[in-house]
């Protein structure tokens, strides 16, 4: 159902305009595909699917139609239908990057994380220019599996990503988390130390390493890092020290110091 009375950009007008055109040319495939996309953008997924069906019946571009089906069924939560459509599209266009992305999303929503990981891996393989989100999605799929084996795979992906993209701090932080989960503490400490060394602001990085030391019951090292964390905070401009997050961080550190 359209969300009546809710502003949605100029989609309403554009749908009305397309509908008027279609009244004059009801079998115009291009107009049907255009309105199907507008319905999809307007969150009217079944209307979108119906326009795609009509376009299919009229012999419209099946690749566009299959993709339209897939994303609309995905939004409707009909993952089996969505998967069927996207698989059909991938048979026709096995290297269509966006189709793999949609398939991975369908599989993630449907809890098929291993398969989703394969799709995400395929996306990486197909990409000429590697991007952080590609690796992140793959890591998320492994995270969803949640086993140690999956974590180890995630670690491998992160190492691959860091090699490909350079220093991405969010990735390094994730790597430390996974190394701890897989009980590779010394490696975690080493990576965390690198994070400290390469950070412009170090207060959180020191705290993180303090937690690792505490996990190892090395309170002396932990206290040193807590102190370094406090010192890092005190080096910051006063306006940053006064921020809510920084006050919370300082309180957390001081609590640990006791």
């Amino acid at each position, binding site marked *: 159902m359209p969300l009546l009375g809710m502003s949605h950009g100029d989609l309403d007008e554009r749908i009305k305009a397309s509908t008027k055109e279609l009244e004059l040319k009801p079998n115009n495939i291009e107009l049907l595909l255009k309105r199907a996309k507008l319905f999809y953008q307007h969150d009217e997924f079944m209307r979108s699917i119906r326009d795609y069906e009509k376009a299919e019946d009229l012999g419209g571009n099946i690749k566009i139609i299959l993709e339209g089906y897939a994303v609309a069924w995905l939004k409707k939560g009909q993952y089996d239908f969505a998967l069927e459509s996207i698989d059909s599209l991938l048979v026709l266009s096995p290297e269509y990057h966006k189709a793999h992305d949609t398939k991975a999303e369908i599989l993630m929503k449907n809890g098929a994380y291993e398969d989703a990981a394969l799709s995400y891996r395929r996306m990486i393989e197909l990409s000429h220019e590697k*991007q*952080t989100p590609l690796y992140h999605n793959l890591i998320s799929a492994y995270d969803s599996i949640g086993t140690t084996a999956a974590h180890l795979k995630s670690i491998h992906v992160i190492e691959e990503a860091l090699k490909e993209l350079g220093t991405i701090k969010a990735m390094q932080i994730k790597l430390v988390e996974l190394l701890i989960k897989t009980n590779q503490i010394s490696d975690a400490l080493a990576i965390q130390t690198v994070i400290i060394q390469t950070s412009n*602001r170090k207060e959180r990085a020191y705290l993180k390493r303090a937690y690792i030391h505490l996990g190892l019951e090395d309170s002396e090292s932990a206290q040193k890092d807590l102190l370094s964390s406090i010192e890092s905070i005190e080096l910051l401009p006063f306006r940053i020290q006064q*921020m809510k*997050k920084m006050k919370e961080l300082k309180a957390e550190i001081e609590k640990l110091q006791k």
Partner: protein
Amino acid sequence: MNYFNYKYKAVSTALLLFIYCGLFAHGDGMFGVIDPEVIRGPYLQKGTESSVVIKWRTDIPSGSEVKWGTSVGVYNNVILDPILKTDHEIEITGLASATTYYYEIIHNGIVLVPGATDLYFKTHPAVGSTDPIRAWILGDPGTANQDQRDVRDAYYNYAGSSHTDMILFLGDNAYNNGIDAQYQNAMFENMYEGILKNTIAWSTLGNHDGITANSSTQTGPYYDIFTFPKAGESGGEPSGTEAYYSFDHGNVHFIILDSNESPREMNGAMYNWAETDIQGTSQKWIVALFHHPPYTKGSHNSDNIADSGGRLKDMRENFLPLLEDNGVDLVLSGHSHSYERSFFINGHYGLSTTFDPNTNIVTNGNGDGKADGDGEYMKGSCNQPMKEGAIYITTGSAGKITGNGSLDHPSMYYSRKDLGSAVLEVEGDELTVKFVRPSGAIDDYFTILKSDEIIGAPCDDGFSCTTNDVYDSLCDCAGTPLDSDGDTIDDCNDACPLDPNKIFPGICGCGVPETDTDGDGFEDCIDNCPMDAAKTELGICGCGVPETNTDSDGDGFQDCIDNCPTDAAKTEPGICGCGVSEIDTDGDGFEDCIDNCPTDVTKTAPGTCGCGDPETDTDGDGFPDCIDNCPTDPFKTNPGLCGCGVADLDNDGICDDVDDCVLVLDVDQSQMTTGLFEAIETVTSDAIINSGLNVNFSAGNEVVLRPDFEVKGGVTFHAFIQGCTN
């Protein structure tokens, strides 16, 4: 891609050009082939303190060559990529910060875009620098119509000849699908080409750009046209993608998020990057950009959780807490084709119905933010308890205005469906944004003031007993206590700050010691008889004298102050002493007690003549007249044989008035006549003897003629030493 980046050297360049021409050139003169023509750009990308990217498009494949230098027409540096292509991208590195460089575009020795005063790029100032910054903000501009041009021209008029440091495109840069041809018309041709060649353009992905762009593969016109830092080249944390990134310019950290295609969930790739990025900057100002506005009631409605696929809601709920908690100052969005500008707010992440001005508008944030109105918004000030707050601007009307939204979001101070663009100007502690209409009118503006390092900043704690008042780590204004008198007790605890001997005023007050010299229990300061233990007041008798209350002579004066206690007529001995009157009967100034002639006003002693008879000595012979029988003859006191006034100098028994031979004769002018002037011993004269006289002087011992003595002609004068002749 291998670029040859080197300082221009005539020999090596000539050699390279020779090889290049031989291999690739198809210049008109050499091979009869049409020279390439630049049909897009040049335009600037990915600025840093030491580098810039220059991009342009040619109609036919050509090499990519840029020459540059710090003066127009003097291009001492060159960079060349000989690979033939139509879309050119050259990165110039090794530049000085905050420096203007002029450039020109070359192909095969032919200048495709000649150098000019407006063909330049300016490198970023050093991070943290307080150099003034101006950014032109264009939200949803890409209509390629006259409205877009009108908005452009208004900004050009506003900016005049001043340099614009950057353009911030808020997405939907080319309608309707962001295809290359639409970009050509909405950005590069008859649109922004004049400013793009000397101003670095940054952008966030809009939904219309996203139709033909793929963020996960970084493909499509949007990603082809723009070159953004994904490895932290321009400052900030590396993002590993051009879909979202950050950069520093001066003292501003810009965070560009992709609200259209990249994952918007918390702990997604973009969120995690944004968290590390914003928590890694210590820049004074933080400005965030993304296309879908968190608050709008324009052509989109942020209360519709499904609007634009939930992107507005996602950004509001997931990213705003992250940005606000870490100090964002300004959030710029487009998408709604109107202009909406918020109050100074914090912590509003729900629907507009949940907006509570009391909690969501920060202290001092409910005014208009205008310096000449309710006053600027203050941030980070000790007078601003929350020390947080941000302004949200939805400015998506740089190309068109659409929709019938109510434009009444309660977070907004100003909402209008008007064409226009925004201008961001930052100078040190001041950040100002203006909304410029096509008419040139500035319908809305505001300023945020952010105090710098508060700790140590001067203030006034209101106490005069302190000096060097500054804000401390608790944001309290406190000064260093003074110790003005050096008594080791600071002035704040010293009630006598200028008296080194006292810290309390005591009985005597500051500056006066509490001494009790006579030990009578009354400090000297209040004891009028500090040396008299028996008295604290002078009384009648004065200090040191008891108040006996005795008046022996009954004259009304107590004996203690009566120096003649037994003389009723006197309280002081005076000249005459007690008991003796001070009367001066004759009024001669001498009391009778000391006047032996009390009734003779001319005398105080009887003298030779006695009281009442003056001691006059008329002839001055030392004998007063009263006993001088010759009172007018200084040589005699008795008449004697000759009588008063006549002597017998030669003592011959003949009075001088009848004695022609005197002992000594002084002849004066009155006496001078013809004759003999004789003396027993001496004749003396100073007279003038006039003609016709016959004069003779005769003396026994000497004749003395004084200097005035003179003898005129015709005179007979003789002087004899013989004594008297008779």
